[in-house]
């Protein structure tokens, strides 16, 4: 009687979510295009003055990240809930928080990673100086996983719970704000030649905290939502 392996389950779930996002190879381009479009909205709406663009660049890129997270968070558990896959997930012999983590990782790979890949190009389009590039990447690398992690709690709480209240938005968006402020601030400061280890340390510890707690909270929330 072969045993159920946690590793296999984790990988399969991750692969499944990625496959659902990119059924066709061509679809892998979609998130990248999405970022380019969102970022190019700003120069279009604002006055396309290079200095101005440089100043707002960190904010713009971070808003794009936030939007990507929000757009895809919504569907993180919804379709699984609707078609009963979520029930099945709860009924595997594996620890639920780890399976949830696989879904969160998939979400980040879909919504966060492409942004990291594109950030240098987008930075260039927005005239961001090369001295700000590393800080931008660093904050994105530390910050976008936090968005996925924290977001998953909110989604899990609201997935089945209709009329559950204003909870979701009130719960996750305020938690997003510190990430945004610190990250955008760090990139801005780096452009002005200031030290940013403080901000990075803060983002890092936020990430560590979210990493440790969010999957547990999400798993608990899912069990409650499915009750």
């Amino acid at each position, binding site marked *: 009687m072969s045993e159920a392996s946690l590793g296999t389950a984790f990988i399969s779930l991750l692969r499944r979510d990625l496959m659902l996002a990119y*059924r*066709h190879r*061509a*679809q892998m*381009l*979609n998130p990248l*295009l999405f970022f*380019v*479009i969102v970022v*190019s909205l700003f*120069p*279009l709406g604002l006055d*396309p003055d290079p200095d101005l*663009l440089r100043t707002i660049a960190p904010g713009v890129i971070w808003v794009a990240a936030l939007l990507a997270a929000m757009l895809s968070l919504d569907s993180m558990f919804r379709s699984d809930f609707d078609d009963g896959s979520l029930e099945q997930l709860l009924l595997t012999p594996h620890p639920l928080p780890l399976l949830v983590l696989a879904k969160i990782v998939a979400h980040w790979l879909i919504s966060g990673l492409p942004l990291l890949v594109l950030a240098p190009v987008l930075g260039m*389009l927005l005239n961001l100086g090369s001295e700000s590039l590393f800080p931008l990447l660093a904050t994105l690398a530390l910050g976008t996983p936090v968005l996925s992690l924290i977001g998953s709690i909110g989604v899990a709480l609201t997935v089945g719970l209709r009329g559950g209240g204003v909870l979701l938005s009130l719960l996750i968006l305020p938690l997003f704000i510190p990430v945004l402020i610190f990250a955008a601030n760090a990139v801005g400061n780096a452009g002005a030649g200031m030290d940013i280890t403080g901000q990075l340390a803060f983002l890092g510890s936020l990430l560590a905290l979210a990493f440790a707690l969010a999957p547990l909270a999400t798993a608990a929330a899912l069990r409650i939502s499915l009750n």
Partner: protein
Amino acid sequence: MSIIPNWLYQLSSPKNFYRFAGIASNWCGWIALFLLVVGLYYGLVNSPPDYQQGDSARIMYIHVPAAWMSMFVYMVMAGSAAVGMIWRIKASSAFANASAPVGAMFTALALATGMLWGKPMWGTYWVWDARLTSELILLFLYLGYMALQSAIDDRDTAARATAILALVGMVNITIIHYSVEWWNTLHQGATVTKLDKPSIHLSMLIPLLVMAMAFKFYYLSNALRRARCELLERERDKLWVRELVGENNSE
């Protein structure tokens, strides 16, 4: 069928279209090659350098035809998608689908050559200028068309859905063309396409037009070939395809 001429109706059957497209695509390919050689020779070697811009102006012979094509292909694509949707003609939808990647390629080419040209002319590769931006949007429209098509797995449904998208996107074409007049931009206004009196010297105009024709024939050749492939795949269970494949196998 009174609306469509009879020969066009016959042509629109997948089998006839496949035959026709095979021949036409070959011819167009050779014509395109010939025109390209002629156009490039006159444009790059035989025409005078621009009195203001020097040799960098020679990018024009690629940039301008590519930019024209980017819009032309879109209009053909939307038109043929619409015909495909309304009369349910597979060949027409297939031609629209085949046009999208070619159009996207021309758009990318116009953007790339424009950026290369912009560095010596404006001192920067990219400005967020109305025409440049709208051309970028055109690229997104093409990519959106292809993304939608690849996301729908039933081909009939895909053809009808993308037709609607293409038609709605037509609005953007107007905006691109008039962008130069509506906003004050860095980009040059209409010089060639002014109807009354083109403000361009004949020695530059002729190679430009030759290149434009070359691009058009290239487009036809490439798109017809792609449309052929799609039809063949879609009709793989039909008798004529089996016969066709059988012929080739027995050879």
